[in-house]
């Protein structure tokens, strides 16, 4: 809002912003400020009120401990709004004033940024901005370029300006999202039920696991898993998995439909917890999975492995964005939260869950050296590895699936993607679900 960007009277602008939030109509705006006056909330009183930030994201990243710790450190309260991956995008596009901070995946930026609902984040106000891992800024891990198929963060991380609806080709001062967590995903398996080594994505559609496999029902992610399988089976080699042509989409979906008709899938899942239940109950022995879900199955004492595969990983990354209308104290609060998040405590917390944090140096300083060695360097654990909640995740002597950070993130084959033919893809995906 250009008319409310003056920060002289933070409070009034806050009130006006709230009014703007409902609608941009002048009438609503007047009503809103009238309401503030009517309730007798004078600026001086309002100014001392605590800041509450509405944090929109998926449940996976919204840990109560992180919100509590931040409140203890700064007095700013975080109010989690947990919805599904797809709904985060939907709300960012349709209701951009219903949150103060968004935690979304980089692939959804292709839908959100053109609406102008996000504000470019000024990296000058982010203390550790220059320490953000090169995976995001240059697409490199340990100096080596990794797979870029799909919506790789480096393609969408920089905006042309603070109020920009276009991605910048080269680094600028403004970032669309400040990375929070990211990981390389692969198939999760139950080694106790499979009883043989699994080395390829092709195993997902291996008839041996008929009725015991699952794939996730989020088209943007599921299609990439399917593409990895199609390539691994030697059916087709995509020029760019992350941006398929209609023909390639047809082929990929047909492969899935054939498998489904043959009874390959026990279930499809959409929610992180569903995948945990499928795996823990033994309904499924091999499936698309997310790292914390594997951790969750393991903390129930069930053997579950996030199996590295020879074709590489499907990577994803999420980050914090700011709604374009955010201003005043809430904006300052949001910047404070992002800075705090990159400062190490949260990073260490996430690393202990099997994710990776955006600024590695600060997280390292908040982790024990044996923890760092296990999680990041791929070394055998010298003590039992505990989750942030205190459950034993790995016994002394065990090694992390996939090894070190460089091995895992260096093995990225593709990223979750929104393709040019996305509408067609979703339509075909519905066909797969209906088949």
């Amino acid at each position: 809002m250009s008319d409310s960007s003056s920060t002289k009277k933070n409070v009034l602008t806050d009130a006006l912003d709230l009014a703007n939030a409902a609608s941009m109509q002048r009438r609503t705006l007047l009503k809103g400020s009238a309401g503030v006056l009517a309730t007798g909330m004078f600026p001086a009183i309002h100014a001392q009120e605590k800041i509450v930030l509405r944090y929109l994201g998926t449940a996976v990243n919204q840990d109560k401990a992180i919100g509590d710790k931040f409140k203890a450190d700064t007095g700013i309260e975080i109010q989690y709004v947990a919805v599904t991956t797809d709904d985060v995008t939907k709300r960012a596009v349709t209701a951009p004033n219903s949150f103060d901070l968004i935690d979304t995946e980089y692939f959804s930026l292709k839908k959100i940024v053109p609406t102008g609902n996000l504000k470019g984040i000024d990296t000058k106000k982010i203390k550790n901005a220059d320490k953000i891992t090169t995976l995001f800024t240059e697409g490199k891990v340990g100096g080596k370029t990794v797979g870029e198929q799909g919506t790789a963060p480096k393609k969408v991380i920089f905006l042309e300006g603070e109020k920009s609806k276009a991605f910048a080709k080269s680094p600028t001062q403004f970032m669309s999202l400040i990375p929070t967590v990211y990981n390389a995903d692969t198939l999760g398996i139950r080694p106790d039920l499979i009883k043989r080594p699994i080395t390829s994505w092709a195993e997902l559609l291996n008839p041996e696991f008929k009725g015991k496999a699952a794939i996730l029902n989020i088209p943007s992610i599921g299609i990439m898993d399917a593409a990895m399988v199609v390539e691994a089976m030697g059916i087709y080699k995509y020029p760019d998995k992350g941006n398929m042509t209609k023909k390639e989409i047809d082929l990929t979906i047909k492969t899935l439909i054939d498998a489904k008709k043959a009874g390959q899938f026990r279930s499809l899942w959409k929610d992180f917890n569903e995948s945990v239940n499928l795996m823990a109950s033994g309904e499924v022995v091999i499936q698309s999975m997310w790292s914390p879900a594997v951790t969750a199955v393991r903390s129930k004492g069930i053997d579950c492995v996030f199996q590295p595969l020879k074709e590489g990983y499907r990577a994803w990354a999420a980050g914090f964005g700011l709604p374009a209308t955010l201003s005043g104290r809430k904006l300052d609060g949001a910047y404070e939260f992002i800075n705090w998040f990159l400062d190490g405590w949260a990073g260490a917390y996430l690393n202990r869950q099997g994710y990776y944090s955006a600024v590695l140096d600060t997280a390292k300083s908040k982790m024990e050296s044996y923890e760092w060695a296990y999680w990041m360097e791929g070394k055998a654990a010298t003590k039992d590895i505990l989750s942030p909640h205190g459950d034993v995740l790995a016994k002394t002597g065990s090694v992390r699936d996939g090894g070190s950070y460089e091995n895992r993130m260096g093995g990225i084959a593709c990223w979750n993607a929104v393709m040019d033919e996305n509408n067609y893809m979703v339509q075909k995906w519905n066909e797969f679900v209906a088949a």
Partner: protein
Amino acid sequence: MNTSIQSAGQAQSDLSKGQVSPFWQITPFNCVFILFFIVPLLLILMVSFWDFNEYEILPDFTFKNYLSIFDGCLNTQEMCVTLKTYLSTFKFCFTVWLSTLLIGFTLAYYLAFHIQSAVVQTALFAICTIPFWTSNVIRMISWIPLLGRNGLVNKALIESGLVQAPVEWLLFSNFSVILAFIHLYTMFMIVPIFNSMMRIDKSLIEAASDSGASKWQTIWNVIVPLSKTGIIIGSIFVITIVMGDFVTVGVMGGQQIASIGKIIQVETSYLQFPLAAANAVILLSIVLMMIWALTRMVDIRKEL
């Protein structure tokens, strides 16, 4: 009944005389109705003709959305997704309707005619409603540990030696979806049918048996016609719910079974609102036709 018809006729002739006060009396309700029902519905109809891209809906007048829904439906070799999905939804709808009707009618009949004491009747009726005190998602999910591969039913079957390997079709199948639907929605049949039955004059049944009618003849010729209103109301509930459902089909079908509701949900979550609106308009017209057909069978307004 006669008096109600008369008074209705009276009201009509009053209206024709130019007394508009009943209209004024229902104006507040009409306003609410128009604002929260008619207007949104018209908006849906309007948007179904709009165009869209990744992140915007674009005002337009195009049949594109409707065409893409029926894309490939002229293909005679394989049914298109839309028809296939409607067919499977209709199958669910019919099976569930028939099962809930039979179970609901039987239960209501037992409650209304076999239980003599009003206290016991109320208590049993309350027992029927108790499961509805919990959320329907919980009631649905509670089937999963029971029916799963390592669930209670399979464990019992294997231990008793009836089967060698776990029965797979118990969960994430058409069977589990129908089971959950019946469990969830039989109540919607019981209540209106029970209500109709309670208003049947007991002397009619005595008269039937005095005239020599057998039990079945009484049920078929006296009770069924007199509880028709309840049956139709219950049917409307069950049919509309099942036609639009996507949660039960999703959870119990392992997300592998399509339903129109599920398709609409996927479309809205990918911001394809015009497409979702077009699907909704089609679904709405089909359900309205079904309800219209049902209301032809009995004049609900008169019976109530």
